[in-house]
């Protein structure tokens, strides 16, 4: 017979364990999804004759460094992971914000490309048009704003079509992707092509020094855009949870009819949500131009838009989750080179592991089934059929 004190501490322990499980529940499925995908990835590596342990060691070393690599290479590895994470955070937030409003923005790719095009246009051409050299404090924000507005308008068109004609945003954002990529090719091969005589690539001229982000540390590529990305994530969290606009977006996402009867202007909110989503994607492009490449080159953004969907789902559309998921995806992309160096596994393996992560996160029922975790019973509706 245990004493009263023992029972008390036992029940305390059980209740704190319960609290812990309650607390970890929202991130439990994503974590297990990552674990399952890594195991599946390991099986694939093994089946094509590779060494999974060595491959994952390479992935980890390549993304976060290690004692073995030495401080210089490790610093560079971490810096490069942050560089990769920057556009992922913006694009992931773009998709996540739309999800919160019950909208699916598959068009981050196109919005990002157009954002980059316009940001570089302002970056290289604005001083010439005005005839004066602009200080960084004016020029850089303008360059970012250009990308932001362009991305926002591009997605806003889709929002307006959805609000006023019911054209489904999934198909329309995909179509706008192709239109954006074709227009980008047209511009970069034509009027915006770098005129220097040695250039044969479809790319813009370099942007002015005054439109560039400074690197945070000398000698490393990580730039202040990464910090801006983190601040943006906090801002989006604040916007969604502490403002009327955020409340309207979330209400519309939960139930558009209820939102309508509660007095939310659903049409306006659809357009606004798509605009904000596109603006974030446009910013991803603008920051890549102003912080990293200093120009836009054709084909640099292949796949960011689709990775962003996986990131938003993995982060459960929560801004902090998106940041963590972005860092994970960035680490995998960045570490893949070292993995390939150590094990000769093609970099494309990463795309496959990421596809599996998306699969297991989307189908959380599979993960819950494998690990026997009970569901809380509510199904979150992310998107609606063609009719809605």
């Amino acid at each position: 017979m245990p004493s009263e004190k023992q029972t008390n501490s036992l029940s305390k322990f059980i209740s704190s364990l319960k609290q812990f499980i309650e607390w970890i529940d929202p991130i439990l499925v994503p974590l297990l999804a990552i674990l399952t995908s890594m195991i599946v990835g390991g099986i694939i590596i093994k089946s094509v004759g590779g060494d999974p342990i060595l491959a994952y060691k390479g992935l980890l070393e390549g993304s976060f460094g290690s004692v073995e690599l030495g401080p210089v290479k490790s610093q560079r590895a971490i810096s490069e992971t942050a560089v990769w994470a920057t556009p992922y955070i913006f694009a992931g937030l773009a998709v996540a914000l739309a999800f919160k409003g019950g909208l699916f923005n598959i068009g981050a790719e196109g919005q990002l490309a157009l954002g980059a095009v316009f940001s570089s246009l302002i970056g290289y051409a604005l001083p010439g048009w005005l005839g004066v050299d602009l200080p960084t404090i004016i020029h850089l924000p303008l360059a970012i704003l250009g990308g932001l507005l362009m991305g926002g308008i591009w997605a806003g068109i889709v929002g307006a079509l959805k609000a006023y004609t019911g054209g489904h945003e999934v198909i329309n954002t995909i179509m706008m992707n192709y239109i954006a990529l074709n227009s980008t090719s047209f511009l970069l091969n034509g009027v915006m092509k770098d005129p220097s005589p040695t250039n044969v690539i479809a790319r813009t001229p370099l942007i002015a020094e005054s439109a560039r982000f400074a690197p945070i540390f000398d000698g490393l590529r990580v730039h202040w855009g990464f910090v801006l990305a983190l601040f943006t994530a906090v801002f989006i969290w604040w916007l969604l949870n502490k403002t009327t606009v955020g409340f309207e977006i979330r209400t519309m996402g939960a139930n558009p009819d209820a939102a309508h009867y509660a007095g939310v202007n659903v049409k306006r909110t659809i357009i606004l949500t798509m605009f904000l989503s596109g603006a974030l994607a446009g910013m991803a492009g603008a920051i890549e131009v102003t912080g990293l490449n200093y120009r836009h080159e054709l084909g640099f953004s292949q796949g960011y838009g689709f990775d962003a969907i996986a990131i938003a789902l993995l982060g459960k559309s929560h801004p902090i989750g998106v940041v963590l998921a972005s860092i994970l995806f960035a680490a995998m992309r960045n570490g893949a080179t070292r993995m390939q160096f150590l094990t000769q596994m093609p970099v494309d393996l990463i795309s496959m592991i990421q596809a599996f992560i998306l699969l297991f996160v989307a189908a959380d029922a599979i993960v819950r089934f494998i690990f026997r975790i009970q569901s809380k019973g509510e199904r979150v509706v992310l998107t609606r059929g063609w009719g809605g």
Partner: protein
Amino acid sequence: MDWKRFGFIAIIIVVLFGGVVAIGQVQQRPLLIVTSMLATTIAVATPLTLGALSGVFCERAGVVNIGIEGMMLASAFFGWLAAVYMFHVFEYPTGVSITAGALFAVITGMLMALLHAVLSITFKVDQIIGGTVINILAVGLTGFLNRQMFFGKGSVFEGSIPNSPGVLRAIHIPITEILSPLCGANSPLCVENIAAINRVFDQKPIALSAILLVFISHYVLFNTRWGLRTRAVGEHPKAADTVGINVIKMRYANVLIGGALAGLAGAYFTIESVPSFEPLLTNGRGFISLAAMIFGNWTPIGAWAAALVFGASSALQINMQIFRAVIPPQLAFLQQSYIVGLVPYILTMIILTGIIGKTTPPAAGGVPYDK
């Protein structure tokens, strides 16, 4: 299908064809241009037609399928891989290899569709997310295996992409042989015209079977018990269940049929069109098929008509180059592929606005069935 929509399709096709004839006639006779356009249109519309039919079957049964693109890409890759393996490793003759490749593409499409069915029907995952998973998985899978199979450690091809055994050959329908005696002895122009018209019908097997499948699908969906049940399951699954139709089974079966059709569409790319594979070669045609399906109001014949419109706009692009169209230099930029290439995308968006007749999707599309 209503007349407004058919009228719209007719106008678009006439405008596209007329444009090429107008600017190409300096080089060539209009009849030759039109027949060349028609032949290209039918060929280019093939994957779109099959993809749209795939969508029709899935969605009529109540399962939204935006994974057609991924199914096509995976099928194109595995069909091609199978043909290459059969030809180079097992040393089968060309004909056997490419037929097996086509078969393999269809099976791949069905396997991808099975994944979609398991996700969206059994696990009740959001169907649009499920489709996105298929699309991303296909890109990763084909990219990885393409690299691994040919350049990986221990690859039988030792770091080079081998030649494919080739592509399916066109089937000749002997119109010229039958009709040319009617021309009389001394009219070479007449024979030439008949031969030009004949070329429109000399299509490759998958293109011909796509047209056949349009009419078979129409018959199956609207004239058979199976079709009635499929539509019932997509419109009102509860009612269908009440009268004893197995909703889950019907949905699985139709998604698998859809997968087979998307697989055949994939085979078009690497078995019928070009004998090679490159990453991302489907280039959005799965999504355009989806648009064709919506424009065709979820009917096979309507979807085919829409696919032909998109095919015609691609044919315009191809034929402008063939006939070296003479156009004023101020408009020369229109000729660039990225501008002409915009036509299907913009058309799709116009169609989706509902200006040209409202579309009515199956009522239960996108909703998992809970008993």
